């Protein structure tokens, strides 16, 4: 994100006149609303905001936000974002990608934008399917996912976007889901982070992969399976009756019961967004035995690449007047005069 002069806007100011073309009931609608609701709260300036996406249902996103928008090519949004931020670090850039776009064809670029730490909010809409191409399994589809390209169920083991992000050097990793009322808070935290902020948003593709997240993301009744993380707060879930504690023996985490709200007695750990080891454990927790870790999992900023480059460029600009003529004549030269040769 960027420091910029606050601009007063409302949700309406962020809506375009374009007809939204997602399937009725698609989780993308809820995410769009959450973003449009968040932007005014950030005092964001539509003229300085840019939404950049790849290709996929999710990547249609920029057409629906009244700001600058660039719908690019499949998987390459991170590279466009990098060029945009290097050319103009003042812009506030959001990148929207899908599980296919960001983890399959664009996996390489996702890794490098995170490793370089470009100052951008990356929203990866994970519906565990290729929506736009009509439902093939994706790199995040669970084993056994039946799809036109795997009629007998997929065999590949799925990748975990947040673990991939951490492995790539991300300094901010968070999770949310489409219909969650907490999503705007997650987006605000991502925006507040200077550098690449990676947000995985579970998104319901009701046509090709309906309700696969219902165990923790159903609009109602799944709250007990959500572990909402908050920095400095105990890692509690199921209305405070359960928590995560250290499993020292196995160097991992375990679920413990919390009696009468006494989480300390139960040994529940306090979340620390700067604890990278903890972050690795949280993103890898198998869902089922464990709840789904949501919210800001990790947030420990380092200088953003674009900011460092901008500083270097500014220094270089003042270091020497850029006289093209002297550049052209650099190195060993000789003069030929009108008549005789005059080798130096």
């Amino acid at each position, binding site marked *: 994100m960027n420091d910029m002069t606050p601009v007063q806007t409302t949700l309406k100011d962020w809506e375009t006149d374009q007809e939204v073309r997602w399937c009725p009931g698609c989780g993308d609608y809820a995410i769009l609303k959450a973003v449009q609701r968040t932007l005014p709260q950030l005092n964001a300036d539509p003229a300085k905001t840019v939404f950049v996406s790849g290709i996929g249902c999710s990547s249609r996103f920029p057409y629906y936000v009244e700001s600058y*928008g660039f719908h690019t090519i499949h998987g*390459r949004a991170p590279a466009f974002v990098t060029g*945009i931020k290097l050319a103009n670090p003042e812009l506030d850039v959001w990148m929207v990608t899908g599980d296919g776009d960001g983890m399959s064809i664009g996996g390489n670029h996702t890794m*490098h934008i995170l490793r370089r730490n470009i100052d951008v909010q990356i929203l990866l809409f994970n519906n565990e399917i290729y929506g736009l191409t009509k439902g093939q399994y994706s790199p995040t589809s669970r084993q056994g996912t039946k799809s036109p390209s795997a009629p007998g169920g997929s065999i590949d083991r799925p990748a975990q976007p947040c673990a991939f992000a951490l492995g790539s050097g991300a300094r901010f990793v968070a999770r949310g889901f489409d219909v969650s009322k907490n999503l705007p808070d997650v987006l605000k935290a991502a925006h507040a982070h200077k550098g690449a902020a990676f947000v995985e948003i579970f998104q319901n593709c009701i046509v090709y992969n309906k309700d696969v997240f219902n165990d923790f993301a159903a609009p109602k009744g799944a709250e007990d399976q959500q572990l909402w993380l908050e920095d400095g707060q105990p890692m509690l879930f199921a209305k405070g009756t359960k928590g995560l504690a250290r499993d020292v023996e196995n160097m991992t985490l375990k679920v413990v019961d919390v009696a009468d709200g006494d989480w300390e007695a139960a040994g529940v750990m306090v979340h620390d967004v700067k604890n990278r080891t903890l972050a690795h454990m949280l993103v890898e927790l198998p869902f089922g035995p464990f709840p789904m870790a949501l919210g800001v999992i990790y947030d420990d900023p380092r200088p953003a690449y674009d900011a460092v480059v901008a500083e270097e460029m500014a220094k270089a600009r003042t270091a020497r007047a850029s006289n093209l*003529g002297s550049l052209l*004549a650099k190195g*060993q030269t000789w*003069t030929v005069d009108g008549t005789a040769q005059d080798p130096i």
Partner: protein
Amino acid sequence: MASDKTTAPEAVVVRFAGDSGDGMQLTGGQFTLSTALAGNDLATFPDFPAEIRAPQGTLFGVSAFQINFGSTAIETAGDAPDVLVAMNPAALKVNLAALKPGGLIIADTGEFTKRNLDKAKYDTNPLEGDGLAKWDVLAFDISELTLEAVKPFGLGKKEALRCKNMWTLGLALWMFDRPRAPIHDWLKAKFAKAPELAEANIAALDAGHAYGETAEISGPLKQVHVDPVASEPGLYRTITGAESISLGLVAGAQLAELPMFFGGYPITPASAILHHLARLKEYDVQTFQAEDEIAAICSAIGASYAGQLGVTSSSGPGIALKGEAMGLAIMTELPLVIVNSQRGGPSTGLPTKTEQSDLYQAVYGRNGDAPMPVIAARSPADAFECAIEACRIAVQYMTPVMLLTDGYIANAAEPWKVPNPADYEPFPAKFLTEKNAKNAEGEDELLPFARDEKGARPWIKPGTPGLMHRIGGIEKAQGTGHIDYSPANHQAMTDARKDKVDGIADSIPPQDVCLGNESGKLVLVGWGSTYGPIHQAVRRARKRGLDVSHVHVRNVWPLPKNLGDLLKGFDKVLVPEMNTGQFKTVLRDQYLVDAQPLTKTSGQPFAIAEIEDAICDALGEPRPSQIGGEVEVNDNQLPSPEAANP
């Protein structure tokens, strides 16, 4: 040269050849500099293996540097060397065939050991039999002489032997009457951190020079003086194509009044451009080493979108990867310069050898109807002008432009009259700052895909208040740019993109005939780095009275408007190119002319003689070899290359 000891020759071709570890490219580079400083015109041809450290002494590990220099205009690195310096048996074996009959071989006997002879697959020592009788041979133990010269500096044997190339350079400097001081200075600067190495190399250089001066060698070794060329007055330097393109891009961005963003990914022979530009931050040049060629071009498009001049560069395999993104730049109509330093293909092909085989890829190689202008540089110096032209077209027409160069141009050096930036007309980029239309109700409206008289859309920087809009690769409505798949709209937008690129022909100069008449029996049509050999071959043929002209095309796409009519004025059209006939096909397609191919894909540039023979064949005349008379390569008919292309 050896056959012509008494008179000053107009031009001499020297080829330094040795093991890739022998420092032949450095030797050649320094000899080039001293030659330039002596006021000769010159052209060079570095020819090195793809392997970084090929096994020592092997045939495939031979690295060579050829220079042609003279007192008249020089346009090629020369067909056949007059002097071959062979630092080992492999170097002799690989390069001997090209040496002119009567030419001089300088060989280091210290390296002609049994082991090295075996590696070069020689059964017997060639220096000893009479197999080299066609040539003059000067064989002596350069290794031993070098060891002796550097003894005072206490280097290990291996390090001491590394000074051999400087000893050889010293001898060459003596042979051609060149001052040593600039090389001394260069060595001192190069080895500033290891003064003993500087001293040892200087001692070796001096010893080689002294050997020439004092050794009582009768026979082939003679001092030769080549007069300076009569060039246009002015300030000169030597320049390689890679340097020239880099500087041209910087100049182009400045003329457009834009910062430059360069996204690249290492690949031979394109990396040199990335390396040059990476040192030019002060000139508002930002370089970005991306994770691959796709990211390189996409970041450059991103930078153009944000208001800078995006540039990317690669060679064949990397250009192939960039194809999809070029389509996006065409579709979103953003300026972009794509430099393709062509090399032998397909696939990895010949990474360090030259070819012109990416022409189809440049002109046709994208999905959809994706017209894109293509410009080809003919020489290192010309690449500067071409780079500026590429920037101009990109900015004025809001389009990606491909600039074609090749491995030969990238590495070759030639003298360059340093241009004055004030002589170029600026083409400042304009950004839209206010809405550019009125809607039906008379309210201000933004039309991101409105078109100006050139067919170009406005350039709108994100960050501009009130002009928020969305762009992308999906077909968009004329004017508004909203998603629009309707049949009539796609037809109209396809036509608009094509018309815009076709219309660039209005802004380029008409095609000229660079040598010969405007019509006649035969025209040779070239593009890119074949300029030198074609030009010399046509000049020689014309000297012998043949009716042949040379047309060299810079704007490969769109082609100059008069080209078709020009070609129709000739009975025959011959297209020499280093591929299997790609430009020939384009010309046939565009003009229905009976263009005939003259092709070469050996990884080596054309020899003048090859083209001259083809001219004779096309005109039904005997080849020069059949009538015996050899015509001197150089004469004074032409001004220097700089004068020909201001």
